[in-house]
């Protein structure tokens, strides 16, 4: 087969690189020649981008067959390119759902493992990797092996949250959970400031399986951290409307918006409006699962809103030990630098992930969407320095600006353990990405 042509590959934040992309149904065959797997390209930064344009990457999205499904236990095995949206379309009407879902359904199972994704139920269900029972992989020496918590466990735990750097994930086995309906009982509540937010999240965590908050990042002083807390639980079959929710029309942003559209003023207006939308202190009701879990999936290619320079999402976790004022200190770094985040999300984490490099740990996470401008590097540096002081860390699936020295200080001995897995399974560093070269040096 001919070499695929060189094209521009990009992450969701529109950060891009030139490279060759292999794509096809036959992952086993194609993975022999590829240096990294990528799925639907929803990691924001450079995790799925090639380190070198001569090193082809393998797009897995046509490898999407379900190989086994046990209706009793919910155990499912599928090829790594199966998307969550397809899985939901097929199995939600039958009462099954992934135990952990990120905020978009346009992700592949392989990507969910590689980033060890978390969702609104992190405080209860942990990360996606906590529910994975086995992986089939092509490793550095070219062989194909099966790994699990029992078998080649170092490879298994290195791969969960390992950003594809331990080998190609060919098949994923995990356990789905039962759901009573495709509808969610949602409550939302206005929150005055960042301290109240953390109390509210902590309290909601004991009652609700799904929680998250939206913060108006431009509010300062006593209003800093004001926003809306959203909580949800599955609607029981007798509370839910009798028919499943309909997939409405999903408009698409056809063109890139010019970069001046998102400026301090429009971002402020959006955030103010969004906050005012919740004009009652509390509201509740039954909504479709998709509008609760995947609100942004309603507009396809919404990333074009940020223009050709794109955007970055800065997501960090601040450990519980850092105390409750740590979130305020990080937000202050953003506001004092005049950084305007279009969208800011806050969520509490309940437990550490199982992967060597899994992102979550008990504490609070903040995710800030920031349009890329000339000063973005300086902003990320300043945020990272603050996060380092708090003892926190960043989420690789979102990152494209962190410096290697910052990353190394955040990860410490976890990085040594990850390097040991790579040394054992891929000593020649066949598997690498633009991100691994930037943050790990190889």
């Amino acid at each position, binding site marked *: 087969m001919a070499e695929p042509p060189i094209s521009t590959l990009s992450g969701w934040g529109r950060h891009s690189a030139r490279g060759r992309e292999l*794509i*096809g*149904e036959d992952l086993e065959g194609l993975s022999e020649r590829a240096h990294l797997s990528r799925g639907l390209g929803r990691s924001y930064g450079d995790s799925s981008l090639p380190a070198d344009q001569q090193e082809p990457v393998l797009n897995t999205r*046509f490898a999407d*067959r*379900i*190989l*086994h499904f046990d209706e009793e236990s919910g155990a499912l095995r599928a090829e790594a390119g199966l998307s969550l949206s397809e899985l939901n379309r*097929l199995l939600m009407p039958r009462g099954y759902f992934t135990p952990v879902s990120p905020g978009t359904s346009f992700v592949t199972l392989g990507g969910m493992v590689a980033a060890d994704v978390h969702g609104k139920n992190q405080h209860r269900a942990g990360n996606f990797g906590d529910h994975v029972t086995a992986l089939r992989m092509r490793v550095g020496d070219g062989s194909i092996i099966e790994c699990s918590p029992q078998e080649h466990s170092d490879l298994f735990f290195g791969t969960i949250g390992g950003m594809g750097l331990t080998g190609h994930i060919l098949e994923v086995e995990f356990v789905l959970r039962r759901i009573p309906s495709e509808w969610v009982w949602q409550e939302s509540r206005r929150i005055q400031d960042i301290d109240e937010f953390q109390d509210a999240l902590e309290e909601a965590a004991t009652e609700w399986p799904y929680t998250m908050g939206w913060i108006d990042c431009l509010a300062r002083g006593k209003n800093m951290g004001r926003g809306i807390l959203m909580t949800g639980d599955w609607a029981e079959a007798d509370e839910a409307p009798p028919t499943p929710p309909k997939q409405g029309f999903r408009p698409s942003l056809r063109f890139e918006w010019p970069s001046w559209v998102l400026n301090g003023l429009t971002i402020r207006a959006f955030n103010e409006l969004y906050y005012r939308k919740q004009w009652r202190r509390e509201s509740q009701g039954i909504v479709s699962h998709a509008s609760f879990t995947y609100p942004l999936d309603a507009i396809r290619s919404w990333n074009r809103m940020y223009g050709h320079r794109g955007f970055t999402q800065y997501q960090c976790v601040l450990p519980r030990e850092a105390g409750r004022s740590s979130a305020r200190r990080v937000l202050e770094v953003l506001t004092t630098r005049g950084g305007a985040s279009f969208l800011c999300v806050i969520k509490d984490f309940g437990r550490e992930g199982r992967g060597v490099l899994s992102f979550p740990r008990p504490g609070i996470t903040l995710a800030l969407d920031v349009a890329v401008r000339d000063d973005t590097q300086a902003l990320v540096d300043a945020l990272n320095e603050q996060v380092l002081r708090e003892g926190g860390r960043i989420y690789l699936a979102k990152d494209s600006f962190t410096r290697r020295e910052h990353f190394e200080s955040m990860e410490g001995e976890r990085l040594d353990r990850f390097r040991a897995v790579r040394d054992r399974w891929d000593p020649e560093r066949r598997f690498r990405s633009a991100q691994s070269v930037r943050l790990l040096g190889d």
Partner: protein
Amino acid sequence: MRVAFLGATKGMGRALARRMAERGDVLCLLGRNPEDLERSAADLRIHGGGAEVHCVPCDLEKPETFSTAIAAAREALDGLHVVVISAGIFATQDELEADAELTERLLRVDFTNTLLFCEAAKKALLKEGGGTLCAFSSVAGERGRKPVILYGAAKAGLTRYLEGLDHKHSADGLHVITVKPGFVKTSMTAGLPPPPFAGEPDGVALRVLRAIDRGTPVVYAPSAWRLIMAVIRALPRALMRRIGF
């Protein structure tokens, strides 16, 4: 419906087979790689919520296997209502011009062998008293065009053959469906820059399924390609010589 399907493991065929399984059709997959067929069968059984899916070996490069394979499919399905063929090969004009062996193989598989397969399917369906033969041709066969001269020639021949088959056997209860996909994002077109109106396999599958149910003889997918090709067919030769499309 009881469906024998050559090409259900990949691309548009995979999407169509899934839609069929999901609505309860009984499928028999034909193909040359038993392991790959079995993986697709497992997937289709789950899509169909425990649907019945059979597998029968058949190689589009070996015409001598066609009659036995279709007979075996009929046996496994205990009847035969629909035969679908979406298998085939694709190569760009540049690749074909550089490789005479590949050209010969593509013309043989996409034209000669596909027709021979349809002949075998036609006989089996007529023996059942009628049914549907659904074959994937292409908009590439609508007009001689610079980027798809050889591939388009094979597909043009296939389209004409299917048209004749429809004329001759429509009265016998044989519905012949000619599918003419435009640019669809599959592994076959990977690496080619997608034009506007590029389609997704599942969208094609839904249109084809409706055409099979209604007995629509010709189906363009995505639908915009019907109009696009009408324009292309109307363009004067002098213009076709100048444009690259």
